[in-house]
């Protein structure tokens, strides 16, 4: 029993990190309808940016906040300079995906060129431990969990309770009609990339804290978990991505506790496939263009 509880604790901690990235990914994909594989490399960039700020003697949570702001700006620039012109020229959905894969690889090697191929570490940041009903968490894990929950709730409120949030969902569902309502869809897309970039920055630093040591492969390795969490939760749904992240995190850690840890990913993705067979559009379908594209 204690093994199970311990594994669930690890799973929740991992799930919070996955959720943080998945919430950013799902909002960006759900609203702008771009399956941005570069997100993985951007996670890596964020992790290294946080690392260099720590080297300058910054507090890790201040570094996380500053990295989020920097990644938000970088994401908007990335979209405006590369992806938006492609969309304007009528590049297909798959064509844009391939470009994001290529951009991700290029960015990954830029990281290697600057930071080198060796692993680096933020050092020992876990802090003291806190016990909740037999679940043991470090302070860092709890802070990351709290950040993920607060950002998820804030995003959910933005999307469902504010006129600008509704405009974001409307732009996602039907950009032509959205423009016909007077919505400045370009501004909506900019804000979407800004939010997604900020979450990517926070997730990159959180990943680096959680994994203790990392190298240039950090982001792409975890991106697949984040995409799985986003799809599982229903594309465009922040609370779905949060729950999806938790499911992926807990299943992989529990499976790892009771079997060969090498198979943990197989169990996590088997659960994903099973759940999608039952609910093809994810747990909380948004009916966005991107969700329809994935579900067929």
């Amino acid at each position, binding site marked *: 029993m204690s093994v199970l509880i311990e594994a669930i604790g690890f799973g929740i901690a991992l799930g919070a990190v996955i959720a943080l990235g998945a919430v950013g990914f799902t909002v960006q994909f759900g609203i702008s309808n771009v399956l941005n594989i570069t997100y993985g490399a951007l996670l890596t960039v964020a992790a290294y940016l946080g690392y260099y700020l720590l080297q300058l003697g910054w507090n890790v949570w201040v570094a996380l906040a500053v990295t989020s702001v920097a990644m938000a700006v970088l994401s908007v620039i990335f979209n405006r300079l590369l992806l938006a012109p492609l969309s304007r020229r009528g590049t297909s959905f798959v064509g844009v995906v391939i470009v994001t894969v290529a951009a991700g690889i290029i960015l990954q090697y830029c990281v290697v060129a600057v930071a080198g191929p060796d692993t680096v570490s933020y050092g020992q940041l876990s802090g003291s431990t806190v016990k909740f009903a037999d679940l043991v968490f470090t302070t860092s894990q709890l802070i990351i969990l709290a950040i993920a929950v607060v950002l998820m709730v804030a995003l959910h409120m933005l999307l469902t309770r504010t006129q600008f949030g509704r*405009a974001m969902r409307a732009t996602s569902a039907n950009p032509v009609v959205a423009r016909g*309502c*007077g919505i400045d869809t370009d501004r909506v897309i900019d804000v979407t990339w800004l939010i997604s970039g900020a979450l990517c920055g926070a997730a990159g630093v959180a990943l680096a804290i959680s994994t203790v040591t990392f190298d240039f492969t950090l982001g792409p390795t975890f991106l697949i978990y984040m995409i799985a969490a986003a799809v599982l939760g229903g594309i465009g749904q922040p609370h779905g991505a949060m729950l999806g992240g938790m499911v992926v995190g807990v299943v992989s850690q529990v499976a790892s506790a009771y079997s060969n840890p090498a198979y943990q990913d197989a169990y996590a993705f088997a659960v994903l496939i099973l759940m999608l067979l039952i609910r093809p559009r994810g747990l909380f379908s948004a009916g966005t263009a991107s969700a329809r594209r994935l579900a067929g």
Partner: protein
Amino acid sequence: MSSAEPSLATRGLVAGYGDIPVVRGVDIEVRAGELVAVVGPNGAGKSTLLKAILGLAKVIEGQVLADGADITRAPLQKLVRLGIGYVPQTDDVFDPLKVRENLLMGGYLLDKQTRAARMEEVLAIFPALRSRLNRYVGTMSGGERKMTAIGRALMLTPKVLVLDEPTAGLSVALTEMVLTEQVRALADHGHAVLLVEQKAQAALRLADRAYVLVQGSVAMAAPAAQVLASPEMAEVFLGGQLKQQQAADQ
């Protein structure tokens, strides 16, 4: 009801996709309180004409005028600020949003209080929507969706309403209801309504004036009743569709 300048007009409009013209030198106009139908066979360029007016298809030559002002190539989000509302043929609503949210989006440019007041006015026009305000539009019937789409376009009280085949995919009964109770009523309330409709017979019965578009050009511009009665139009330009419908009516 007529004013000095038409609410919406095109002058020698040539438009299409890339450099290939689909619409060739079209002059049309619609005035306040008038329902003007654009009819014609499949591929005549009716929808392209609307898209060119709305900045969604390439204008190669000519002008689009609103109250005499040149709005050629103006983007859709600017046109809506000038009082031009648009309901596309399909994909005319926000499926993942509730009816209430669709209407709120229609009033996006209004302040909160004006938006709430205007929503009440729109619900008075479409009382059937009141009990469905919290339903997601993606789960509703074709007629309800069309009501939501037109209601959404009315939120900004447009001077001109451009409707692209509002009865597409609807049953005969719903077609009659949408055209009579919604489209005609809009013109009677003072809106200038430009209607593209594949169901020519039904549109011509209700319209004030009509343009018959054939191969991208205006083949006939006349009062709708005159177009409806014209055997030449029925036989030659509408592929016998009107004649068949007239025979069926008798």
